[in-house]
Structure formats: C-alpha cells, structure tokens
C-alpha cells in the first residue's frame, strides 16, 4: 500500500476536510516535475503512489460484489478444494493457474496495479511518516489507530512491504513454475478463505476464489503448457483458434477467455494478496494469523437471488463514497489512469453489479463497520446500493466522455433504471445526449473474397526477367488463390489445421518463387490481397473496437442496403464480452495471412513483404488531412468525403502496420519469457541495428504537424507486436517515451487544438498499448525496466510508471455489451453474453430484394473498376467529388441566390403590411420558395450531367475505349449527382431558409428605426455617377465637424460632398446628427465665420457678408440632408431646448436665420408645416425668459400665417429687422 494515502484515508474519512484533501491530491496529481510547490514537496512521493493505490483500492474493495462482466465464474467451488497452498498460497502451482483459467478475466478485477513501483516508496520512513505528519494530524486521533488495524498495518509495513521480499518471491515462483505443477498437494489450509470460500448457492456469481489464481494460457499443439507471464498478449505461436474473434460458439468464447487472460503479473499480485490476507486475518484475529477457523465478515452466505434492486436510501457511508468518486474522477480526468475505457468499464460493472446482498446486509454492515474503523480497511462497497451510488457519482463527473459514446450505449445508459433512481439529473442528461447522439457503430460491407486483378503494366511478361519466371509466377498466383479458397472452405471445420494441410504446399510454392526470384511480385500480390480482404473493421483490426462512421451508409445511399448492413452487423459483431483487455489479434481473414507467413517461413518473402508494407504505410501516412472548422449542424459535403477517406486510410494503415510489426518482431518472438541474462546481451546486440521503419521519426513528425490522429493509431498497432526485448532497446524506448508524453498531454477537455473525439481515440489506443508493453515487461520479470527506460526520459514522469502496470484494456463496445447483458438479465451464465437475436425469415427476406437491383448496380460499379487500371478509379472518384461539390456551389450561387432575391421582394412588401410576426412571415415566404427549391435537384442533375463527362474525358487517356469511357463518365456523373442530390435534398430547404433569414434580418435592420448595427449596410448607397471617390472619408468629415464645433468657428464655403464609398450606417448617422448641430449653431448666428476679414470692413457690410455666408452654409446643409443622406436626418433636433437655447443666449437675437431654416426645411421636404408648428408649440411650453418667449410666439405666428395665407413660393418674410430681399435673393 501506499502508506501516505493509506494514512490520508485512515485519518477517518468522516472527519476529513474534503475540499482540502481533494485540492491537495489534485495538486499533487497535476504536478509537473519542476513545479512542485514547496508545501507539497513532502507529498512528492505521494503523487506517484496515489493513483495506483486508489485504483487498487477500488478494485479490491469491489472485488466481491462484482460478478458481472467478462468473467467466467467458477461454477463449482468444490473443484478447488484440492488445491494446495504452501504458506498461504504464496506459491501457487501450475495446475492451480490452469484451473484459474476457467475464472477467465475475473483477474481483470484484481489488483490493477502490482507493486512494481520502486521499492523505496514503500519503506515506512520514506513516505509514510512525512505524509502522516503533514496530512493534518490535528484531525488525527490516536484512538482511530488503536486496535488490530494499527497492528496489521505496522506488520505489513515492516514485513511484507519490503520490496526485497517481493522480488525474491517473484523469482522463486517463476523458477518453480511447471515443475511444481506436478507436485502433489502438500498442505491444505482450510482456514484460507481465498482458497476455500464458503459455499453458497449464488457462488456461481462469486468469483472471489478464482480471482486468486494465476491463469494459464490455453494449451494447444503449438503452445506450451507452461504458464505465460503475460497478461494480455497471446503468444504469437498460439493456435489460431485462440485468436479467432469470438463467434457465437461457446467453445470459441471459452478459448478466447483463456487466451486473453493468459496469465497475470503474478508474483507481485501474489504479494499483494498475501498482505491483504494477513492484514485481514490480523484485523479479525488480533494479529494472530495462524488462529483457527473463523468467519470472515467479508464473505457472507447468500441466498439465491435475482437482480438486486438498488436503493438510494440503503446507501451507507455516502460521504466517503462521494470523496472516493471525486478522487477517482479527477484521476480519470487528468489522464492519470492508464485507460479511460477500462475505468469506465469498471464503473459500469459497478453500476450493473448483480448484487449478492441479503436482507441482513444492513446489520452486518453496521456491525462490520464498527469492527473496523480504519477507513481503508472498511468496506465501502459491500452492497449493491453503495456500488451503484459510487458508479452514478463517477458517471456524473465523467458525463462528457459518456456523452460521446455511441448511440446504442447511450440508450442503454439512459434507460438504466438504477441511474434514473439514483440521479434523475444524470438520467435526464443522458436522455438528452441519447436523443441528440448520432454516433453509430457501423461497419463496412464485407467484400466477398475478390482477387487482385491482373494489370498488364505490372504483371505481363515484360515485368519478369525470363519466360520461366513469368510462367512460374503464373502458377504461383493460381496456387495462392487455391490455398485461399481451401482455407475459406475449411478453416472453420473442427480439426482443420493450417500448417498440416497447407504448410507443405506453401513451402513448395516459396521454393519455386525463390528459384525464379519472384518474391517481389508475390509480396505485392499478397499485400494487395490482404488489403482487399481485411481492411474493413470486420476482418480488420479491432484493437479499439467499433469505429463510428455514419457516412458509410450514406455512401451507398440505399435503404435496403442499410437494412442489410444493420442485420449483418448484428450477426457479425461479437456478442460475447471479451473482457476488457484483448491482445492484438488477427481476426477473420487476417488469420490466413498471418498463418501463411508463419508456414512459409521464408526470409526472402518476409523481407520483400516488409519492404512493400513500409512503402504503402509511408504512402498512406502522407495522406493530406484537411482541417475543417466545426460546422454548425449542416455537415459539409467535402468534410464527409474527407472523413471517409481518412477512415479508409486509417483502417488500412492499422492493418498494414500490424502485419509489419508482426514481421519485424517475428524473429525475436519467444514463447517463453527470456531470462534477464539474455536480455542484456540481446539489447546490446540489437541496439546496433537500424529499425526497419523509422517510426520515431514519423511519430515526431506527426506531433509536429499535428497529425497524430492518423499516425498514432497505426504506430500503436505496429508496437503492439513487439517482442520481449524490443521495449528495452534505445530506439523503441524513445518511441514509448514519446508516446507516454503524448498520453499525458492529452487531457480530455474541449479545446481548439484537438477535438475531443480525436483525443479519446488516441488515449484509447495508447492505453491499450501501454498495457501490452507492461505485459511484455512483466514477462521478462524485470522490475528495473522503469529505471532503464523511464529514468532516461525524465519528462515522462516516474510516477507514470505505476500507471503502466495495469492489466486491462477496454473496447468501447464492451461497455455496451456489459450494459446490454444487464438489461437482458442474461447475467453471467456460462460467461456468455449472447444477445438474443432470432433471425426471422422476414428479416432475411428484407435483405434479399436489395441484392437485386440497387445492390447489383453498386456491385457492377465496383466490378467495373476491378480490371481497370487503378488510375481510372481515382480519376472517376475525383471527378465525381469535385463535380458534386461544384454542383452544390453552383446551385447556391444561382438558384438559391435567385430565390433569396425574390424572397426579399416578397418580404419587403409584406413587412410593411403587418409589422406583427416576423418569424411567421419568414416561414410563409420560405414555404412558397421550397417548391421551387425542389428544382435544385433537377438543376443539380443537369449540372452533373453536363460537367461530369467533360472532366472525365479530359482526364482519361486518349486511348481509352469508348465503352470504358462511357461507363466511366456515367459512373462519375452518377456519383456526382448522388452526392450533390443527397446533399441538396436534405439541405436545400434549410439552406434557403437560412439565406432568406439572413437577408430578412439585414432588411429589418436597415429599415428599422434604430440603426444600431454597425456591420450591416443595406443596399449599397450610390455616389453620384461621376463620383471619383476622392471625397474625404466620413471619419475625416466627422472629425472635422467635431473640431469645428470645439473651435467654435466655421469655414466659409459649401459642405463637403458626401461620398458613400466608405460610408457605414453609424458614420452616416453621426454625420447627420453633427450637421444638425452645426445648423443649429449657424442659425443662432453666434459663430464666427472664417476668412471674413472683420477688420477691413464696416459693420453693416460685415454683417451682410456674414449673413450671406451663413445662408450659403445652411443652404448647402439642407441640400446635403435632402440629397445625400440615406439615413433619416434628425432635423427635429433643431427644436430642442439646447439648440434653440443658442438663439436665446444671444443678446441681439437674429430670427431671420431661424425663419430661413424653417422655410428651408419645409421646402426641402425634410419637415412638414404641421410638424414644425407642433415643434414650435412645444418649444413655447418650455421655460424661457419672457422676452424670448414673446419673440418665439411672434415667430410662430409669422411662420403659421405665412404658410396658411400665401403659397409657398412667394412668402413674405418681412417681420423681422432684416429685409426679406436678402433671403429671397439667396433662395
């Protein structure tokens, strides 16, 4: 145990200051090497121990309640009665290990982490006291530590906690191994609860006993009976059956179970178990380990019981569970757990735990909890209620990840009644996520075995050195397919053995190839056939399981096809829960190719094949990745194409990389874990050689170029097949180190750098790889690996090492299966989780008609390309893609634009009529347009029909025969049309609506009274036809006017002509306002005018000249307002209290200018009589000096009388001191 955390939790969880501790731990987890806060220095050891401890703790705590999941429960505890154990089973025999096989992957629930962390961290003085001291011992009372638990702890620390004894025990065991398997059972220890669990009716569900067994690999004619130390990786030489993807047969399932959990990190776990047992015994027996029989509070006799109903009210120690959930979630969120999916799987196991509680639980718990007060020893997960509570808490925290799961899984989660009853909030969110989820698991249609076509360019006589070589290869090709057909027909038959049946024929073929130097030709054929048969997810690698790819179906665009596919998926997707840690496998057809390589055993062939694989990998890895902005719902066509291309490339890359890895590391594979003595010399030797493919360089490049999403998955496939020593080589050490850094960097959160799903994918594959790596190292029995590799690369962080020691890996698909099995209630019966699908005649019949017409056409299309040069296909696909894309663009630019224009007219009319409901109006108008929108399909077809053939004709060779050309053109047109029309038919209405809405909004903004928006400008305002756009910028004019207002004088001359080239609504509005202000100042006659040389002229003369100048300015202002401004000019401002106040402030008031302005406003149509009258009227109601008020009244009267009596043209303007003639002359 990690003493520091031990201590931390032991202080009594109830008293713990939750936020503080969380913070503390959180900080310590997030530590970077160089950023250790002073206060946290004492905890620096804590950080590396904490996570493994926590995860182990959870596994240990839940080990008894968890019976669901991928385990094959031991059916008869009796069978274990004879199992022997010397000194508390610390030396299990081989036979026990084998017996443990039947327990299957229940081992996955054991200690997640073994004690592989450097020994120093376990010595009491290194971490325990320091952390104890700093972990707030104020809350720490001696009484809690008193009693047996304290003693047990001390014992553990002093004794078994010692790493020397750990490694000693380990070595011993690996030496004993098979020999002890034959030794008779020497000692029976009935007290050992691990060995002799109490019988119970529900024991079929209790796999605790089997948990304690080291599983052995299934033995076959080619594998060895000795136990593998590898947790996950099936030995390369294992019989094909063990690697065959689980089908429906239980035998297969069992074989996989055996194969998967081949063995265990054994030794270290053993130590853990020992400690745990001791501790428990001592706890209950006052430290007297050798005491007699007792009943453990941990294990209760249980009645037969169906699924327990989880009840929130029965949850005990909620607070502790919440704390644990919080800690655990933080670890997941910070990538401190080695595999997110593994942890999710574990959480779902808890959620769906079958429950072995009895009604007495409550009492027992109480009793029990009183008995052991130690927080660590306390059972927090002793009942279903607690498990579910914890699981729901964690799921709640991890909602973001969960929401990305595929639809089926989400559905099961959303419908899970336990979640619903424990957290209605989470339930609601899950429901919502499910409803909006589109992530579907989909598989490519399997292509029936197709041959690689004969291409004269590469395959005819001129490509061979001699007639003989040519003819020999002709024969080899036929033999190869003959073998393939034979394998296809027979490999599933019982007793059929690849090597026995085909081995000699393959080797004879290889001899011929060698004689004729035809290996390169054959390697190419082999690789092409491999890609052709295995690139799909079915036959292809399934290392990270289901690949969400919604577009595959769309590509085929047929209802029947999709139905067929769905049906097929249900049959093809393995229904058994394989356990969360599958080794790299060669499923489906890949098996043929792997076995072929093994049987051929040809150095020349392997070398040529590796060359060929490297070349193809490099080619595909160079695929151009186009980044796409996240689109707002409306999926872009090009993006879909990109996705399709990317998926295809990724699948092929992973397939090829797996085979390359297989070939590269094949010479070094050993069935037995090699001894450490060999390691040193082997590593020294192999460090001298160059890698076949420079994956390190490629990995670095991919990180730099941000292409990890393509590169990392295939590199992981490649590395998943490393031999025992390869991880110790300098080169691969660097590769792993870089991958580890990458893993730590990719904390799951939305950011701009990388999408959530991409990260999730990379984390999943990396987590899986680390697991495999760990297995390889565990096999070699080297604890110092961490020192050797990881210390060289300090950035990776030593504490990460602990994380690598985890036995599990999970497919996302496993989550669903687990949940589904929960729903089906099929439970752990026989360990199989076979979904109940009854293929009815109706269903198979629905699939059949599709085979006829549309499918036939799709097939014909594919067949057409088969015998044509590959360039033909590329050309046609390229043309189809571009023409389809252009077609949509064309429709947008023509038809849609036209419709929008018409919509605008319609809206303009209607928006004036009824100002009421804009959205309704919009809908109405759009509805009228949709019908015409349907034309888009027609026009789209026309476009494709016109443009497609042109392009194909230009791009294909002149010599192409007419029939081929026509077909190519037709296919290109068809594909382009389908692509465009599919998009158009689903998106055209949305597109029209969106465009119309945008236009409408713009229209409203332009028309609306408040021209608030800055960025919209309605119709482009016209400058005068001869405008040279040389006028000052609006900003300059505004600035000038502003300056004038500040200075308080005006230039003589006209207003500058407004040029609208650079005008925007705000500047226009501002200009309008400014000019009105300006006019008000002018009217008050209190502003000096520039260039009037007041000194040189007499006063009346000066006065007249001044008036003229002001009149001139006012006139040009009026004209600008009327002619130039599009925006309404707020001339009413002239009548504001402030602006009229200008006049009032002047001693000798000049009203003629004001009157002139009033007439001007009317004459220019800027204001009506009535409007002015009312303005004047309201002016009079304001508080003015009496004399001013009188004058104002007089002016009003004059204005009114003038307009009521005379006609506008010849109005007298006589009343005031100024003779009217001046004004008239100027007007």
């Amino acid at each position: 145990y990690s003493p520091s955390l031990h201590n931390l939790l032991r202080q009594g969880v109830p008293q713990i200051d939750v936020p503080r501790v969380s913070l503390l731990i959180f900080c310590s987890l997030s530590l970077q090497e160089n950023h250790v806060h002073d206060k946290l220095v004492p905890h620096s050891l804590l950080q590396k121990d904490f996570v493994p401890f926590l995860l182990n703790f959870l596994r240990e705590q839940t080990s008894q309640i968890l019976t669901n999941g991928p385990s094959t429960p031991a059916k008869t505890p009796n069978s274990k009665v004879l199992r022997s154990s010397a000194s508390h089973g610390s030396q299990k025999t081989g036979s026990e290990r084998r017996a443990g096989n039947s327990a299957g992957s229940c081992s996955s629930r054991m200690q997640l982490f073994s004690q592989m962390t450097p020994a120093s961290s376990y010595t009491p003085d290194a971490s325990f006291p320091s952390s104890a001291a700093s972990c707030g011992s104020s809350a720490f009372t001696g009484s809690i530590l008193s009693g047996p638990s304290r003693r047990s702890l001390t014992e553990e620390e002093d004794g078994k906690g010692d790493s020397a004894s750990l490694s000693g025990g380990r070595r011993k065991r690996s030496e004993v191994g098979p020999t002890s398997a034959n030794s008779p059972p020497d000692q029976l220890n009935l007290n050992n609860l691990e060995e002799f669990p109490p019988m119970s009716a529900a024991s079929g569900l209790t796999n605790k006993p089997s948990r304690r067994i080291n599983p052995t690999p299934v033995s076959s004619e080619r594998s060895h009976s000795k136990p593998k130390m590898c947790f996950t990786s099936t030995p390369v030489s294992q019989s094909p059956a063990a690697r065959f993807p689980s089908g429906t047969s239980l035998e297969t399932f069992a074989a996989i179970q055996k194969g998967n959990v081949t063995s265990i990190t054994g030794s270290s776990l053993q130590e853990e178990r020992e400690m745990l047992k001791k501790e428990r015994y001592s706890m209950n027996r006052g430290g007297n380990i050798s005491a007699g029989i007792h009943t453990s509070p941990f294990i209760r006799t249980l009645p037969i019981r169906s699924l327990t109903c989880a009840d929130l009210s029965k949850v005990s120690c909620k607070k502790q569970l919440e704390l644990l959930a919080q800690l655990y979630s933080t670890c997941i969120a910070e990538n401190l757990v080695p595999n997110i999916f593994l942890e999710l799987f574990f959480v779902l196991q808890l959620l769906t735990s079958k429950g072995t509680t009895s009604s007495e639980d409550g009492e027992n718990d109480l009793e029990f909890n009183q008995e052991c007060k130690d927080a660590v020893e306390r059972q927090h997960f002793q009942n279903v209620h607690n498990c579910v509570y914890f699981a729901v808490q964690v799921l709640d925290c991890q909602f973001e990840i969960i929401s990305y799961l595929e639809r089926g899984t989400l559905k099961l989660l959303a419908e899970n009644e336990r979640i619903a009853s424990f957290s209605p909030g989470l339930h609601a969110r899950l429901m919502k996520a499910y409803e909006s989820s589109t992530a579907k698991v989909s598989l490519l249609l399997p292509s029936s075995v197709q041959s690689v076509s004969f291409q004269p360019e590469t395959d005819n006589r001129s490509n061979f050195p001699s007639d003989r070589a040519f003819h020999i290869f002709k024969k080899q090709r036929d033999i190869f397919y003959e073998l393939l057909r034979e394998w296809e027909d027979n490999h599933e038959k019982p007793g059929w053995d690849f090597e026995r049946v085909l081995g000699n024929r393959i080797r004879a073929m290889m001899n011929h190839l060698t004689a004729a130097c035809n290996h390169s030709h054959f390697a190419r054929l082999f690789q092409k056939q491999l890609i052709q048969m295995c690139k799909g997810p079915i036959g292809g690698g399934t290392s990270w399981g289901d690949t969400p790819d919604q577009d595959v179906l769309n590509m085929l665009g047929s209802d029947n096809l999709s139905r067929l596919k769905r049906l097929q998926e249900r049959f093809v997707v393995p229904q058994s829960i394989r356990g969360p840690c599958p080794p790299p496998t060669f499923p489906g057809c890949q098996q043929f190719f792997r076995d072929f390589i093994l049987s051929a055993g040809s150095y020349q062939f392997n070398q040529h094949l590796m060359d060929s694989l490297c070349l193809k990998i490099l080619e595909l890895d160079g695929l151009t990745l186009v980044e796409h902005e996240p689109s707002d719902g409306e999926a872009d066509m090009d993006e879909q194409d990109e996705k399709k291309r990317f998926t295809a490339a990724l699948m092929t890359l992973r397939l090829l990389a797996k085979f390359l890895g297989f070939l590269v590391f094949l010479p070094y594979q050993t069935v037995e874990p090699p001894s450490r003595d060999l390691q040193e010399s082997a590593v020294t030797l192999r460090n001298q050689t160059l890698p076949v493919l420079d994956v390190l360089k490629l990995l670095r490049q991919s990180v730099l170029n941000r292409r990890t999403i393509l590169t990392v998955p295939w590199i992981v496939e490649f590395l998943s097949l490393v031999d025992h020593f390869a991880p110790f080589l300098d080169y691969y050490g660097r590769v792993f180190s870089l991958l580890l850094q990458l893993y730590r960097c990719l904390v799951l959160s939305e950011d701009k750098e990388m999408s959530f799903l991409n990260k999730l994918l990379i984390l999943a594959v990396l987590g899986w790889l680390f697991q495999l790596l760990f297995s390889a190292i565990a096999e070699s029995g080297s604890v110092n690996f961490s020192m050797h590799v990881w210390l060289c690369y300090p950035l990776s962080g030593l504490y990460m090492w602990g994380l690598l020691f985890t036995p599990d890996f999970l497919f996302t698909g496993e989550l669903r299966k687990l949940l589904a099995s929960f729903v089906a209630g099929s439970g752990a019966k026989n360990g199989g989780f076979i979904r109940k699908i009854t293929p009815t005649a109706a269903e198979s019949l629905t699939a059949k008609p599709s085979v006829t017409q549309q499918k036939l056409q799709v097939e014909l299309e594919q067949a057409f390309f088969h015998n044509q040069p590959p360039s033909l296909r590329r050309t046609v696909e390229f043309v189809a893609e571009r023409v389809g894309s252009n077609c949509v663009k064309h429709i947008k630019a023509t038809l849609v634009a036209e419709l929008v224009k018409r919509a605008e007219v319609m809206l303009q009319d209607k928006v004036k009529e009824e100002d009421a409901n804009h959205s309704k109006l919009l809908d109405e108008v759009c509805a009228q347009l949709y019908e015409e929108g349907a034309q888009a399909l027609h026009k789209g077809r026309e476009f494709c029909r016109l443009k497609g053939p042109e392009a194909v004709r230009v791009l294909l060779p002149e010599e192409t025969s007419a029939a081929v050309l026509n077909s190519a053109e037709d296919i290109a047109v068809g594909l382009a049309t389908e692509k465009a029309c599919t998009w158009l038919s689903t998106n055209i209405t949305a597109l029209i609506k969106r465009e119309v809405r945008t236009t409408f909004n713009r229209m409203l903004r332009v028309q609306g009274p408040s021209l608030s928006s800055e960025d919209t400008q309605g119709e482009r305002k016209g400058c005068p036809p001869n405008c040279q756009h040389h006028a000052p910028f609006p900003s300059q004019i505004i600035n000038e006017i502003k300056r004038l207002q500040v200075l308080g004088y005006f230039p003589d001359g006209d207003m500058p002509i407004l040029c609208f080239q650079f005008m925007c609504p705000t500047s226009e509005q501002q200009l309008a306002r400014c000019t009105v202000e300006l006019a008000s100042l002018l009217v008050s006659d209190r502003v000096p005018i520039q260039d009037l040389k007041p000194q040189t002229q007499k006063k009346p003369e000066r006065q007249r000249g001044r008036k003229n100048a002001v009149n001139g300015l006012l006139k040009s202002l009026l004209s600008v307002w009327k002619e130039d401004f599009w925006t309404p000019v707020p001339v009413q401002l002239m009548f504001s209290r402030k602006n009229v106040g200008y006049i009032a402030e002047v001693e000798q008031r000049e009203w003629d200018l004001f009157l002139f302005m009033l007439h001007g406003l009317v004459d220019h149509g800027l204001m009506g009589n009535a409007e002015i009258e009312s303005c004047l009227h309201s002016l009079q109601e304001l508080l003015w000096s009496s004399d001013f008020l009188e004058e104002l009244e007089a002016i009003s009267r004059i204005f009114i009388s003038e307009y009521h009596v005379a006609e506008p043209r010849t109005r007298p303007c006589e009343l005031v001191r100024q003779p009217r003639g001046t004004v008239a002359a100027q007007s």
Partner: protein
Amino acid sequence: MKLSKAQYDEIAQFLGHVQPTRQSLRKLKKRFPSQSQSTLLSIFSQEYQKQIKRTHAKHHTAEAIETYYQRYLSGVVKNAGAPVLLELANEVDFAPSLMARIVLERFLQEQEGTIPSKTLINSMLRDPSQIPDGVLANQVYQCTVNDCCYGPLVDCIKHAIGHEHEVLLREMLLEKNLSFLAEEQLRAKGYDKTPDFILEVPVAVEGHIIHWIESKASFGDECSHQAYLHDQFWSYWNRFGPGLVIYWYGFIEELDCHRERGILLKDCFPTDIVTLRHSVAQH
C-alpha cells in the same frame, strides 16, 4: 440443355453398353427422346472417349501392337480392299483412328528402322496419300472417315464447332452492345491467361457480376468441368474476378455450384443481363 446428375448418369450407363457407332447413336436418341440431339451426341462422344482412355494402355502394350500389326498384315494379304483395320478396331473395342495410328506407327518403324516423329504420323493420318504404302493408306483412310470420335476429321470438326460458337457469342455480345476484349487482344497485351472474352464493362447475369465469358462447345460433365476449372476458370477468376462459362451443349446442373464464388454456368447466351446504367433517374 441442363441435365440433372441422375439424368446424366442414366445416359452414361446406357452408353456403357453400346458400340460407338452411328447405330448406337440412333438407339440413344430413341432411348432419350426428350434430350436434344447435340447434347446426346456430345455426351456420347465424351463417354466414348472416357472408355477409350480407360483401355488406352491395354491397346498400347508391345504385344497388342504386334498382334494388331500381324492381323493387319494377314488381313490385307487376304483381301486388300476389305476394311481390315476398321473391323479390327471394332472387334477389339478401340477407336478406328487410333488403331490406324498404332498400325501406321508400327509400319513406319519397320520401314525406316527408327521411331517416326509425331508430326509425321499426324501429317500422314491427316493426309493418308502421304503414306508410302497404298494399301495401308486406304486402310487408314477408311478408319479416319469411319471414326466418329477421334481422328483428324473429328478433331477438325470439333475445332470448327468451338470456333463457330465463339463467333456466335461475339455476335451476341455485339448485338447486346457489350464491349469486350477478345482473346487475341488480350494475348497482345501480355495477359498470361486469357478467356475467350473479357468484358470491358462488367455486367450482371442473373444477379451475379461477370467479368469474362468462356465459350465451351461441349457438354459439361464432371470430368471435363473439373479439368477446366483447374486449368482455366479459376485462373481467370484469379486474375479478372468472377465470370461466365457457356456450355453450349449443356452441363450437369449440380456442377453450377460456384455461382456465389464467381463461376457461373449457362447453356446458352444469358437473357437476364443487367448492365451498368447510371441513369440519374434511379435516385
């Protein structure tokens, strides 16, 4: 015409007991009136060939050869005009042409002192006037014209039938507007195995995609079909994908078992042909 295995077996059994004569053929037709004549003829010929193959070794032992030669010599001595060789062949249940070949070989060996070349023998069989001995020439001639299964005449007829059917097939393809590459074009391109026709644009026959068509102007029985599969059809499949074999004179129904895998059998030019038509209307 397709025959079931049972039907075929019945015919074969019947043929096991008759001589390969025109008379036998008439009996056969009478016995199986519902079968087409050409099918029966083809089966008749194949069964006879099988029988000959079975007994071939027996007639080629040194003793047998010597016996036949001596009987020939003594026979022509008695009556040079009588069909000595033909009667001998019928008597020992052997094909007359082959009997003629045995005797001719033996004769030339005696004359020249060396074993004559195959080419020479073939040439003489084809044109008996080249045979230095007039009597033997006549005897050989009688044998070849009276043989309905072997000999240069029959070979020539068979070849002609094969070719005619190829031409027929070509016509049909042209008529259906199906574009193809013929054998000679394929050879020119350097293909190592060449079916009669490769379709430039594949079609679907009865729901199965086909890339190539091979014409066989014979009945498809088990024996010949297995040989063809191994030597030709699978090789075509290995290179060009699935294809169609037309056995113009019919075949045993049960042999048409590789449809799913890509070898389709027909006894006539197929009518249910779906071509790649990318009419936009289909969407």
